[in-house]
């Protein structure tokens, strides 16, 4: 996917394609392994409940951040770049949640010599609940 989308081809209000994963310990443990992120609340149901999550262990916020980056990369392709991503963690990623990254273009402009496209983003669970509102800035090639 060298070039998926060009600056001239997007407009404010467009949605980027959704990107989804259903998460459980298979996803969390692999991510913990590469990121060296072994925290009991993400590994052990008793620790999760002690941290006031009745359903037990829950997913790490960093993995949802990763999913936002993955969704952006898949949309923009390999010749484009990601300049900024931010998010706030507002709800928990429970075991077996299906998370979908969403993004809507809020602005596009040439800035510092780059074709920058600004997006409002979120990661939404299978019940439609937004879990981490955020934003992104990507740099797209010209046509």
């Amino acid at each position, binding site marked *: *996917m*060298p070039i998926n989308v060009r600056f001239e081809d997007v407009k404010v209000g467009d949605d980027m394609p959704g990107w989804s*994963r259903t998460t459980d310990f*298979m*996803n969390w443990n*692999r*991510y913990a*392994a*590469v*990121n*060296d*992120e*072994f*925290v*009991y609340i993400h590994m052990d149901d008793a*620790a999760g409940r*002690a*941290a006031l999550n009745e359903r037990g262990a829950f997913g*790490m*916020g*960093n*993995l949802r*951040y*990763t*999913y936002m*980056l*993955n969704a952006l*990369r*898949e949309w923009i392709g*390999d*010749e484009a*770049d*990601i*300049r*900024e*991503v*931010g*998010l*706030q*963690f507002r709800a928990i990623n429970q075991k077996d949640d299906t998370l979908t990254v969403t993004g809507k273009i809020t602005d596009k402009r040439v800035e510092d010599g780059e074709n920058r496209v600004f997006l409002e983003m979120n990661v939404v669970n299978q019940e439609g609940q937004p879990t*981490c509102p*955020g934003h992104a800035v990507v740099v797209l090639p010209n046509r």
Partner: protein
Amino acid sequence: MTSEVETLVTADMQEKRGVWENERVSPPVSESDIRKWGIASYWPEKPPRLFWDTDYANGTRWKGIIAPHDFNPFAWPIERPAGREASGPRTAAGSRGMNGGQVETFGVAMHPGDVITSRTRLKDWNERTTRLGLTLFTETEMEWRNQRGELVKTRISTGIRY
């Protein structure tokens, strides 16, 4: 009880506000670590070829494999940061924490062989009473540069303690 604590701001925080510290130098970024990062973070789907296929990546603008933007070259240090794997439930005011979120601004990409230098500083904080009781929101700034001094990224992360 949390109501007995007047502030979670410590003298150490006051002293360290705005002061760069914790400089660390990563081991060289390896292709194998990038490949494993890609597999884990895209699981159960196959990660993009840009993260593992040298022949393909050589033909892109990057002229080779790059690391995903969230790749952490500081994972698995020999010396473990104190308190990182603390066990058991925490109940004292200020001892419980959450990751509030972050904003990362990216510069140049990380390539295999890069050596990343990191430094951090406590940028600011805000304390108020929430449904969790007395709650402290801290902003920590982190900066990564490669071996040529080029900015790889900055991160402003929000920590929540209550």
